[in-house]
């Protein structure tokens, strides 16, 4: 109700809107009546506005009558009007929303001073440096300022249900180099002492979420459940040192961290070249092109592997921060851009084609105008006036829909995309929207004016028919539209088909009725953690509806990260890839329904990890036991021999579609309870029940959700692409459908006489329908052939997004073609069915 009230108030004014709302409340009729009144008033206001614009100065006086004439004449061509309005509304909404998002990502200036003089470093291994390397750089290039930042990580969680808090460690010079400072508070030098590191600067978002935006936040404490640093060392309570500005963007990360931690480094670390401390931002006015070489040389021939390629070459690059941001976003946005451009082209062709057909229908009127001395410019003006009401109506509808499309897109947007500004309908977006509407109107009017040749005008004056030429034009327009739409539809079906395949991939275990609870222990002592974990496991097991609880002694069950352990490769396969290692208990296999393909899984007595046994997945068995006989065989973890008791299928533990290349090794190692742990619960207990069961002061809940939801999370990127391309595909299909419908409906209208004659000569209803549908289907077939060629070239742009799906997958191509055939066929059938009911006598008399 609220958007409707807002709409009514906007068009009718506060007082009148109140009267109308009161009347509707009193008389009844509800939302439908309110909507009808609001739409009616909107249309009248628009007409008033346009009329007032043209009615003022004398030279516009003629415009008013032409506009009114156009409105009256369009009312007599409802199919044409509806088709054009719909096409403009759909395209306008998608394209304007697309522009608003792209504008918020690419075209906004970074909210930091002089972004042009800020650089990030890249190298084959991410260009991470040790503190000793950093020191060498600072000595080599004193003309630039360098700030170090660590990797971002999940610090802990806040709230119920828990929401992860992300953190980033930064050096004391971070804000000076970035040129952006906290909006309130800040760090002191002593905050960077190794013993301290608990005074944090929080994001504006976290400040609002946790402290409700209260101004006296500096010095307050911040409790983060399960807080641990990036080395998994538990951290206590934090103190707020400052709050970042609302528009703060950390320009090199996927998203702005919730918390900035001071990088407190022990003095000993400064000489350690083997431990990487993080990456750097470099600020310098005129950075010479030779700086990367000088910095590489500063390592003295022992450059870190993070700037070393596989061939041993050092590749360090300084990338301006404005360009660095684009590296993350280029692929998705380029494909979205291309699809958007094709859609706009499709809409312009569609409107131009419909408009031209309409002009050909009006050839008689135009002929008379030409005969009375109207120039081509006059006809162009007339065409513009004829388009104007439809373009205005379509554009207003599209603008009304744009905020909804933006909200839906932002919700699904990949986390990789850094929104410098929240997309909204601001003046730049309005300008784009106006430009798009004007572009459609002008191109349609120009095409239409050019298409009405003197010959056809002369024919119009004589009242002669140019049916063949008109039909050929209509068919060509359908073919071009189908060709463009086919290109988008192929993209849509390939991407959707690819995701379908991803979902159909066996993950190697069962997800049904399994929930995941990630815990972070606050205690630094292993024994205390173990005792608490056993208590929590018992509490969860006792919950009604819980069948089984498995434990992964590692908080990163789903990220694919595993304990780093080295297994000695066998003599006959020295190149065997290292597997990922998961410390689990016996129940883990039962909860996930993982059964041994060979041998067995762990017994409950083996869970504690005292027995030197392991379970391996099939790809580990193939790599480490190439001659077979894995069960009973021995794998050496560093030098400790471990006996393989069973082989299970490979599992996608890192999210759908993500396979650990080396396979999995499961280790019964739950006795040394890790600081982070994952409970996998099979049963019908709700997430709330689970949260209550694990509630403890000594443990923080990082995540609690159905396992299937957690697995889908890493698929945000492919899901966004599916959403994006589905929206474009649906829009393209709608435009083609509307286009074919409009063309056939207009063709039916002008061929009433012909239909009458055919009916009078004994043509059946089916024959009349077939006449129109056949004509359109031939055009559609030609369009599919041309579009096929275009799509074969265009699919290379989306090839990298496809999972186990060749870009030439014949089934998906067939689905795309079938979709277009169905849409175009149905669109041609509806007006044809209406026309086939023609009464020969009436039709001939009307003609």
């Amino acid at each position: 109700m609220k958007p409707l009230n807002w709409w009514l108030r906007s068009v009718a004014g506060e007082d009148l809107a109140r009267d109308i709302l009161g009347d509707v409340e009193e008389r009844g009729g509800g939302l439908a009546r309110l909507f009808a009144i609001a739409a009616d008033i909107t249309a009248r206001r628009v007409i008033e506005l346009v009329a007032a614009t043209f009615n003022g100065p004398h030279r516009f006086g003629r415009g008013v009558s032409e506009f009114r004439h156009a409105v009256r004449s369009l009312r007599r061509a409802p199919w044409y009007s509806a088709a054009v309005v719909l096409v403009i509304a759909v395209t306008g909404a998608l394209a304007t929303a697309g522009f608003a998002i792209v504008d918020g990502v690419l075209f906004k200036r970074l909210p930091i001073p002089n972004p042009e003089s800020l650089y990030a470093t890249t190298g084959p291994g991410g260009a991470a440096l040790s503190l000793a390397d950093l020191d060498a750089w600072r000595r080599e290039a004193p003309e630039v300022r360098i700030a170090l930042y660590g990797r971002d990580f999940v610090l802990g969680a806040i709230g119920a249900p828990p929401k992860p808090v992300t953190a980033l460690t930064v050096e004391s010079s971070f804000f000076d180099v970035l040129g952006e400072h906290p909006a309130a508070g800040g760090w002191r030098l002593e905050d960077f002492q190794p013993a301290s590191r608990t005074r944090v600067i929080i994001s504006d978002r976290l400040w609002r979420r946790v402290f409700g935006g209260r101004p006296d936040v500096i010095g307050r404490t911040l409790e983060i459940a399960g807080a641990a640093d990036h080395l998994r060392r538990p951290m206590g309570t934090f103190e707020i040192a400052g709050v970042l500005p609302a528009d703060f963007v950390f320009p090199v990360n996927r998203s702005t961290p919730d918390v900035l931690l001071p990088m407190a480094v022990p003095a000993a670390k400064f000489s350690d070249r083997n431990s990487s401390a993080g990456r750097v931002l470099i600020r310098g006015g005129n950075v010479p092109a030779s700086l990367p070489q000088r910095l590489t040389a500063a390592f003295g021939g022992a450059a870190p592997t993070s700037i070393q390629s596989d061939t041993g070459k050092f590749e360090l690059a300084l990338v301006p921060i404005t360009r660095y941001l684009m590296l993350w976003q280029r692929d998705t946005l380029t494909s979205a851009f291309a699809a958007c451009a094709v859609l706009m082209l499709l809409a312009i062709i569609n409107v131009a084609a419909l408009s031209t057909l309409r002009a050909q229908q009006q050839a008689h009127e135009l002929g008379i105008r030409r005969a009375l001395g109207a120039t081509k410019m006059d006809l162009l003006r007339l065409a513009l006036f004829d388009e104007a009401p439809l373009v205005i109506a379509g554009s207003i509808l599209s603008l009304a829909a744009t905020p909804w499309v933006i909200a839906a897109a932002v919700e699904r947007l990949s986390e990789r995309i850094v929104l410098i500004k929240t997309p909204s309908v601001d003046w730049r977006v309005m300008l784009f929207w106006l430009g798009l509407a004007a572009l459609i109107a002008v191109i349609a009017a120009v095409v239409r004016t050019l298409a009405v040749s003197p010959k056809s005008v002369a024919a119009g004056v004589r009242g002669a028919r140019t049916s063949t030429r008109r039909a050929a034009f209509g068919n060509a327009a359908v073919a071009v539209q189908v060709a463009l739409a086919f290109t988008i539809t192929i993209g849509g079906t390939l991407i959707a088909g690819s995701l379908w395949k991803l979902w159909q991939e066996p993950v190697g275990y069962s997800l049904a009725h399994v929930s995941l609870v990630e815990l972070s222990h606050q205690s630094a002592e292993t024994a205390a953690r173990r005792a608490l974990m056993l208590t929590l496991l018992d509490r969860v097991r006792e919950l009604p509806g819980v069948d089984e609880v498995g434990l992964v002694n590692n908080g990163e069950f789903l990220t694919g990260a595993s304990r780093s352990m080295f297994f000695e490769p066998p003599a006959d396969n020295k190149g065997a890839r290292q597997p990922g290692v998961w410390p689990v208990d016996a129940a883990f296999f039962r909860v996930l329904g993982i059964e041994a393909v060979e041998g067995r899984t762990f017994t409950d007595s083996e869970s504690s990890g005292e027995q030197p046994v392991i379970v391996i997945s099939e790809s580990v068995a193939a790599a480490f036991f190439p001659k077979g006989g894995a069960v009973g065989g021995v794998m050496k973890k560093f030098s400790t021999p471990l006996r393989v008791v069973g082989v299970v299928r490979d599992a996608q533990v890192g999210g759908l579609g993500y396979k650990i290349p080396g396979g999995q090794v499961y280790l019964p190692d739950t006795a040394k309870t890790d600081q982070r742990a994952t409970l996998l619960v099979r049963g019908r207990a709700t997430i709330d029940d689970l949260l209550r069961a694990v509630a403890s002061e000594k443990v923080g809940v990082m995540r609690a959700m159905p396992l299937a939801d957690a697995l889908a999370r890493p698929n945000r990127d492919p899901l966004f692409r599916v959403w994006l391309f589905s929206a474009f595909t649906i829009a393209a299909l709608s435009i083609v459908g509307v286009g074919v419908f409009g063309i056939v409906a207009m063709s039916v209208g002008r061929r009433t006489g012909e239909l009458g004659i055919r009916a009078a000569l004994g043509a059946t209803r089916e024959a009349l329908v077939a006449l129109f549908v056949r004509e359109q289907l031939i055009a559609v077939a030609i369009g599919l052939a041309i579009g096929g060629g275009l799509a074969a070239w265009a699919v290379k742009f989306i090839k990298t997004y496809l999972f186990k799906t060749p870009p030439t997958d014949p089934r998906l191509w067939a689905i795309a073609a079938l979709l277009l055939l169905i849409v175009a066929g149905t669109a041609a059938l509806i007006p044809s069915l209406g026309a086939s009911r023609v009464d020969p006598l009436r039709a001939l008399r009307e003609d």
Partner: protein
Amino acid sequence: MGKDLSPLGEFEQMVLLAVLQAANHADGAYGITVFDELARRSKRLVSRGAVYMTLDRLEKKGLLKSSVTEPLAERGGRSRRCYELTKPARAALRESQRALMNLWAGVEL
């Protein structure tokens, strides 16, 4: 806003007359009663949006004046805006009636 001295349109005249007719209702002449009178007596398909906008415009032209009632429960706590004709409106209507009657004089269809 300055008074608009442009002549009355056909629909404006009909709305003014409907306001006069609706004024006889117990509830006075407000949106619903004006619309009902107009629809019933003109036997035309009348758009509600057009009626509301015309009432608003006529008030701005100074041809109608309005007063609001106490808030009413059946209107969700909102008041009714009741309209009545101003002197210039009555004069304009009489003028229009006289012009039409002169034109009709002696005409047979």
